[in-house]
């Protein structure tokens, strides 16, 4: 019970710290909104075009896309293979391939196939409509031109120029929509979901790091020594301090989960699986906090080390920019961070409907890491407490 008293005082102190409150409660909300907006596609998606044909009709379609109301940022990509790769890595939201011989095929009355690649279904369907509109407009003119040319009134080119307004139904172009590689962010991933998971992990960890500083201050204040002068065993003090930091991480975690679900409609998926992942990650954060808090020499040092660790691990582990954006070998290296494991687990649960069974690897890695770190931290704190 004494351990609970110590844990409670830790929580109380966290709630007393005004700057701390900003970082714990306000900043995550701000970032979820900002990132949700970005991932939500309100910023122009990037469209890569492989112009396999340089004929007038191909150029015409490209121009129509550029000037259309799709508000796309259009980039030329040399080959279809490269386009696919970039879309898979998330560097481009969508890709469009205008096939070789587009011009000739259309002039000779054939059907040309345009391919659209993308990861996010929502984005794809929006784009498909835009491209389809541009294509429909072009095909209407092509059809009219064909008609005119067949009648022998004019050449195809002159007919095309004059046929701009004629409406018809004969399609000359078909549009194929394809999902590049494995579908990474399925349709169910709402605008805020992607941001919320990385925010959760980033902030749970950073908040744990401020708890490390608190631990140092507690030691420096002599409060922990004073605790030892009361009928409280070293084990109880260790348990209390650990539990306190764990509670701080969990408060941060639950705050983001509940708020994002209630206000931004983020779906975290299976409650038990997501809950276990959060608990496991809180263990890791607590463990790192205890290690830093026990071994750092002063609060400044602990603060610097903690924030640095939080930022570097967060960036490397995909808590700032999605890991999918990384190339190899960074994408593999990312998995030395607990962040990458936690985010992977949370995504599995939230976006692919995974349950506890599907995230056992992530749970295992995080729990094992947490236990090792906690043991190391407890050992260090015990040493710091009884050394004098």
């Amino acid at each position, binding site marked *: 019970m004494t351990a609970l008293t110590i844990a409670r005082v830790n929580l*109380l102190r966290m709630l007393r710290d005004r700057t701390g409150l900003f970082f714990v409660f306000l900043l995550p909300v701000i970032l979820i909104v900002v990132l949700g907006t970005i991932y939500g596609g309100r910023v122009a998606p990037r469209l890569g075009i492989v112009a396999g044909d340089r004929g007038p009709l191909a150029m015409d379609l490209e121009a129509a896309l550029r000037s259309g109301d799709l508000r796309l940022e259009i980039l030329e990509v040399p080959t279809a293979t490269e386009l696919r790769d970039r879309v898979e890595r998330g560097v481009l939201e969508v890709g469009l391939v205008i096939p070789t011989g587009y011009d000739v095929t259309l002039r000779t009355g054939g059907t040309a196939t345009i391919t659209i690649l993308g990861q996010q279904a929502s984005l794809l369907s929006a784009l498909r409509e835009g491209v389809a509109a541009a294509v429909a407009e072009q095909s209407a003119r092509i059809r009219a031109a064909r008609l005119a040319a067949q009648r022998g009134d004019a050449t195809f080119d002159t007919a095309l120029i004059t046929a701009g307004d004629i409406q018809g139904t004969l399609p000359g172009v078909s549009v194929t929509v394809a999902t590049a590689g494995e579908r990474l962010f399925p349709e169910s991933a709402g605008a805020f979901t992607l941001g919320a998971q990385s925010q959760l992990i980033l902030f749970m960890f950073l908040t744990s790091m401020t708890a490390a500083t608190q631990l140092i201050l507690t030691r420096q204040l*002599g*409060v922990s020594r004073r605790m030892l002068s009361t*009928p409280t065993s070293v084990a109880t003090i260790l348990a209390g301090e650990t539990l306190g930091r764990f509670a701080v991480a969990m408060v941060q975690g639950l705050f983001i989960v509940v708020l994002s679900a209630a206000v931004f409609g983020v779906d975290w998926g299976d409650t038990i699986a997501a809950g276990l992942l959060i608990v496991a990650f809180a263990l890791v954060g607590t463990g790192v906090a205890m290690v830093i808090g026990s071994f750092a020499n002063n609060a400044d040092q602990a603060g610097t080390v903690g924030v640095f660790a939080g930022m570097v691990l967060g960036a490397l582990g995909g808590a700032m920019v999605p890991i999918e954006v990384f190339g190899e070998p960074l994408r593999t290296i990312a998995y030395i961070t607990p962040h990458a494991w936690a985010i992977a687990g949370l995504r599995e649960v939230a976006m692919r409907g995974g349950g506890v069974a599907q995230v056992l690897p992530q749970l295992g890695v995080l729990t094992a890491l947490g236990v090792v770190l906690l043991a190391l931290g407890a050992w260090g704190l015990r040493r710091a407490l009884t050394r004098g």
Partner: protein
Amino acid sequence: MPTPVLDCRDLRKRFGSRTAVDGVSFSVAAGETYGLLGPNGAGKTTTISMICGLLGRDGGEVVVDGRPIDVGSTDAKAAIGYVPQDLAIYPDLSARENLRFFGRLQRLSGRVLETRVGEVLELIALSERADDRTSEFSGGMKRRLNIGIGLLHRPRLLVLDEPTVGVDPQSRNAILSSVADLGSEGLAILYTTHYMEEAERLCDRIGIIDEGRIRAEGTRRELVGLIGEKDRVTLVAGGSLGPAARALASVERVQEATATDGRIELVVEEARSLLPRILQEAAAAGAVVRSVEVVEPDLEAVFLHLTGKALRD
């Protein structure tokens, strides 16, 4: 002598190659205030840390209230109220919250805890500021709270490690008189200081500690007696000074009495107890005493004598 509340024997502690405490033994009885007087680095805090079970020791034994104390002897620690040298309070909590927290660690709860917190706040004169954050307190208020926390659970032994360091004279006086009150209520008090005046004023017995060893121990009087110095008494007086001086010289324990220009200088043993007698004799011999000055040799002199160095640098 009744069984002492604190009994420590042959305490030893080394930090690497440095011996911080080198065979310290002493005991403190109920109602007694024992002072550990020594300069910086003498080993006072290290000794106290071992007594309170905060620090493992390399040798020796500590018994408090009949129970041995070690880092792991959780229950026995309830008999000790420890007031650390450096403030050990949470700055972001109020005085009341600090008291409640440590009270709970002392296994108080519910109404008993609340009552006791109120009493202690009253005792340390912080009732009015009880709900302010301690970071907003003055140095003296923080010190008082620091002491109050040590008293919450009504310990048998109160251990105060230099409780007046960095405190203004007024707060210091307040602290000293409340410690004196606690001593008279039957608490055994272990008080460390490097202020000679505090040790002289508060302590029934004093251990002079230097380089991890107790060099001498006893009442102030006994310690001063060690160096064989006598008290000096000066009577500023009129009337027949010569006869008065001769009369006084024959009083037992008066070693010298000389009449000079308007005053009589005496060298005596234990001026305090002898003073009424001296005044009586002087009056009887026809001297009219206007004022008396007593100079007793102080612990500073004793310390210098024992260690060859000054108490404070």
